[in-house]
């Protein structure tokens, strides 16, 4: 029985995070989960908008929720951690703060949209963990893992402050899901530390320092790659490695992937369908890990 969800990709998944969009769609298709992209979706309201003009940001965000409330499938999947957080925050604030609820209500009425109710904002990782379940993931994982162990990195927005089913201080869903797919992981104490956020753009020295700490600790723990749930985390950790090599003199070159990419691979998807060629750092490693086993499979057939 296929399961159906509304889908909110958000802006990152159409720009720096195209690989995330591709791999989530590929992974969900393999698991017989149907994603129905929300028609006419707009900006989620995002963190920067929120800090400049909170009122308008809530209205923007609420418009998406209102669209989802009219859609056939009221579970709204969004892979981007920022979208996930902002959508959930909007629901929370509309519920608890009458002033914000009024402003949102006016905004929606101006566009003739119904109020937002009954929508569940969900993250693909949480869907894999709860709706699909570890057993099904185990059965669906057909490719043996040939790469090195992985450092699972959650960043901040998925688990703080809203954390639906995982532990806030020490989330473990990603490790559990990867383990079910036969992918080994390392203990990674920095799994919820700051990736640098937008500081990589505004104060690069501080932002890159934060990137560096995470990359370095993952390597120290014996991880061959870092896997993330957030397009901003992925971009920050992936894109500045050349700069970091220059500033620290350390030979840091480690792939930074989406959890959906490695899981999609384990379940038999094509490397290109998962956007694996789009990564910046660790190209050699990616080539080895995600090609060698495919050759073997061909030999097998």
């Amino acid at each position, binding site marked *: 029985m296929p399961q159906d969800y509304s889908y909110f990709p958000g802006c990152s998944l159409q720009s720096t995070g195209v690989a995330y969009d591709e791999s989530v769609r590929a992974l969900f298709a393999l698991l017989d989960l149907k994603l129905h992209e929300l028609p006419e979706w707009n900006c989620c309201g995002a963190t920067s908008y929120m800090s400049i003009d909170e009122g308008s940001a809530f209205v923007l965000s609420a418009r998406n929720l209102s669209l989802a409330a009219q859609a056939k499938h009221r579970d709204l999947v969004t892979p981007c951690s920022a979208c996930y957080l902002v959508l959930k925050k909007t629901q929370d604030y509309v519920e608890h703060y009458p002033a914000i609820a009024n402003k949102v209500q006016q905004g929606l009425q101006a566009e003739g949209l119904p109020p937002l109710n009954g929508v569940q904002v969900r993250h693909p990782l949480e869907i894999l963990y709860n709706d699909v379940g570890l057993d099904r993931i185990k059965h669906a994982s057909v490719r043996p893992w040939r790469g090195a162990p992985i450092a699972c990195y959650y960043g901040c927005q998925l688990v703080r402050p809203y954390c639906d089913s995982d*532990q806030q*201080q*020490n989330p473990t869903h990603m490790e559990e899901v990867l383990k079910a797919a036969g992918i080994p992981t390392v*203990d990674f*104490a*920095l799994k919820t530390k700051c990736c640098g956020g937008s500081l990589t753009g505004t104060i690069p020295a501080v932002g890159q320092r934060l990137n560096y*700490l995470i990359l370095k*600790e993952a390597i*120290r723990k014996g991880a061959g790659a870092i896997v993330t749930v957030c397009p901003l985390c992925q971009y920050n950790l992936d894109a500045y490695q050349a700069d970091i090599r220059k500033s620290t003199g350390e030979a840091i070159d480690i792939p930074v992937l989406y959890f959906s990419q490695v899981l999609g691979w384990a379940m038999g998807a094509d490397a290109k369908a998962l956007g694996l060629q789009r990564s910046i750092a660790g190209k050699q490693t990616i080539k080895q890990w995600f090609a060698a086993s495919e050759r073997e499979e061909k030999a097998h057939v």
Partner: protein
Amino acid sequence: MSEEIRTGVYTCHCGSNIAATVDVKAVAEYAAKLPNVVVSRDYKYMCSDPGQDLIKQDIREHKLNRIVVASCSPHLHEHTFRTALAKGGLNEFLFQMVNIREQDSWVHLDKPAATVKAMDLVRAAVCRVALHKPLTKGSVPIRADVLVVGGGIAGIHAALTLANAGKKVYLVEREPTIGGHMAKFDKTFPTLDCAACILTPKMSSVRAHPNITLWSYSEVTQVDGYVGNFKVTVTRKPRYIMEDLCVGCLECIEACVYKEGKFVDEFNMGLSKRKPIYIPFPQAIPQVPVIDPETCIDFKTGKCKKSCVDACGERHAINLKMKETTEIIDVGTIILSTGFQVFDAHRSPEYGYGVYPNVYTALEIERLVNASGPTSGEVVLRDGKRPKSVAIIHCVGSRDEKNNRWCSRVCCMYSLKLAHLLKEHTDAEIFNFYIDIRTPGKGFEEFYQKLRNEGVHFIRGKVAEVTDWAFDPSEEGKLVIRVEDTLLGFARRIPVDMVVLATGLEPHADAQEVRRRFNLTCSSEGFFLERHPKLAPVSTFTDGVFLAGACQSPKDIPDTVAQAGAAAAEALALIDAGHVEIEPNTAFVLEEDCSGCRTCIPMCPFSAITFSEETKLASINQALCKGCGTCVASCPSGSIVQNLYDDEEIFAEIEGVLSNA
């Protein structure tokens, strides 16, 4: 009845407690005009002797036969004023108290409105008191035997105090030995005397005392009855070794087919292994081993050669067929001293307990520094190495919005003690991370000063996390404490070998079950609630049941022992009085109206109502009834009446409060 009602009304200022918010004079003047009121006065302190004398005098001079006092809560002074009535020659129940302090002046800001409210309440009392009838108090005898539940230091001290006073005491303990948490400690703060040295002689005294019946490995499973006459069921779990036959030679343990311990030793907090047949610690009382059926081969497969039975030989103390038994005892009073449980450090995942092997709880360190502990007092890490640096993190699970909000009171001092002992055992560098250091106790602040002189570091800041994330080579292989040092004003990383979590105290997981069994109430965090936080700290709302120790709130050994002594004294006071007076505000069944429908029986929260198969009528035990009125309201035929709360009185009060002029 053609008695002329002559009511006196007395409105109290309570210094400025009432007078600041209620116009007391206006209330008194208003009351003077109410029906039946002959005298109305206001006075600065009605509870004082001159205040009470006013009432007595007026009863005589004005032939008063009803009294209303508008002052504080009846909890505080109802008894005072009833006594004044009695001394003035009036039945003490021809009295009504109006609470214009806790329910009026203390909770309102608007003086005119508060004054109107006081007038309304006084008017209600004047209306209802006219219908009061003279009543007499009942009395029930008190049995002299006492049940003490929980054999930690609180229970031990209470039991010995009562036994020394010549009372027969049943001491029930759920573990195989008495001693509680204190038996696990190494030294005690701030004097650093050895916990075992001061505790074990008291444990032996319990065993030897002719007035104490000790039932270890047992639990109270049912409590019936009421103050003076409790009927208590105690379930005794099978320990598979008969206490009356065992001499405590422990040869059975030696003989067990397991040559080495293989199972988690609960007493040593899992830091060592025990056999399926074991004694928790060498000075355990009773000095009788116990067999754990979960791990014993004979229980699991039936295929053990039973070398323990052979070793016991002629004594035949081992009985593998032993069954659970129950004892039913009659006691007059009960002391609950069931203690606490330690906060589970897994619930604060940021501190890495269960993730990093060298993160310990304070109770584990108590065992580690203890000469009779798993390492014979050698403080070593899990890999056998001696720590060169130790971090002690205060307030784990305490003063924490995510976990328990209260201060556990003992952790600062036991952390200081452990800092001293760890320094003494290892000469390691010790860091204490604290939010506030709380040392209010005799010799406590001096002990803190002593630790500072010993060179222990104190860093003020709530630790963010314990991590193995190594920043540079000096942190490699260490546990890194990340903390904001709020005195220096910046974030620090401090690498250490060992982390000690000062876990807090919380109510037992089954405190709610115990609460229901003994008919107690709990405060919001789940500790058993005392009758009054200042003036009745060991009594409960169930007469005849007293509290001692950390089951009431976290407390240290000196306070626990003091409270246990107080609980024993309260029990003795009841026993020596020989009987207890019972309030007459109880409910009773009008037999001619009762249809025997039994609706009331399950309603009674005190199990005070029984159904007689002979008469087919319900009847209410006057000693058990607490006057809550639930049965009165539930009775479909209106055949249950409650003294002081019959329909006429309640309606008069309602009409009084609503008939604002």
